[in-house]
């Protein structure tokens, strides 16, 4: 393979990138494992005072929920949602599940998914 980067075929709009948004001084999540399917949960006991936008986000995380679902419920773009989740994780308000791209035990994950689908 000579070319590892996808050139988007004939299209000329390859320069589109996610809107860069600055939140608490950052424009991208520091935790680069943060995926749109990453599971997020509110940690008990962390009762810091939060701005309403953050409070709203934390309220959605009473049970495990994905970054994508948070974005959908809050009507906020994914990049922004990720940055906000990232900020809250660093403050100890939210906890994360295993990243989707954790390939350590691919086979176990696939087997779990297969069994679940067959049960549907």
């Amino acid at each position, binding site marked *: *393979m000579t070319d590892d980067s996808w050139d988007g*075929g004939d299209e000329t709009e390859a320069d589109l990138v996610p809107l860069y948004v*600055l939140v608490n001084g950052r424009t991208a999540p520091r935790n680069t494992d943060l995926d749109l399917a990453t599971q997020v949960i509110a940690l008990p006991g962390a009762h810091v005072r939060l701005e309403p936008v953050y409070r709203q986000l934390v309220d959605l995380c009473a049970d495990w929920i994905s970054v994508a679902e948070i974005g959908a419920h809050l009507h906020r*773009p*994914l990049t922004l949602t990720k940055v906000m989740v990232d900020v809250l994780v660093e403050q100890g308000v939210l906890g*994360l599940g*295993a990243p989707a*791209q954790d390939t350590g035990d691919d086979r176990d994950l696939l087997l779990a998914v297969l*069994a679940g689908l*067959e049960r549907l």
Partner: protein
Amino acid sequence: MNGERRSAKVVVAGGFGTGKTTFVGAVSEIPPLTTEERLTAAGVGVDDLTGLDEKGTTTVALDFGRITVSPEVVLYLFGTPGQDRFWFVWDELAQGAIGAVVLADTRRLDSSFPAVDYFERRKVPFVVAVNRFFGECRYSADEIRAAMELPPEVPLTFCDARERESARDALVRLVRHALSTVVT
């Protein structure tokens, strides 16, 4: 903190109007949700949380659904955006995905070529699911394979994206295929 809860992703791709959203909705345990990514020309920024200026930005909507496969594992199904020019978004969806279902419509197979190309290049396991829009398909699996230039190892299946069982079977095909590619 690394909790016990894990997620897995499947990308549902294919050309414009091939039934991606229908497929996701058929198997999802929740009504499909839509999340969006805002794209802009490289280098343009916005400097606060609320100042999301609409000007010069393109919104790409992503439909997705969810299937809780066990108490520890949730599977997310993400439909690719209808237009295939938002490669950045495809990259984000494909990153770490267990694989992809590429839906195809025999009336315009070529609309699914970019998806096939994409997953081949990225070495993401995928299956092609021919969506039966009109009941019986006029072409044989071999004819479709030849037209799409599918490598022999890529499974080809027929489905009705409106039916849960049918969509589920296509997913099972994909996961079995993905398992066959995992080195042990």
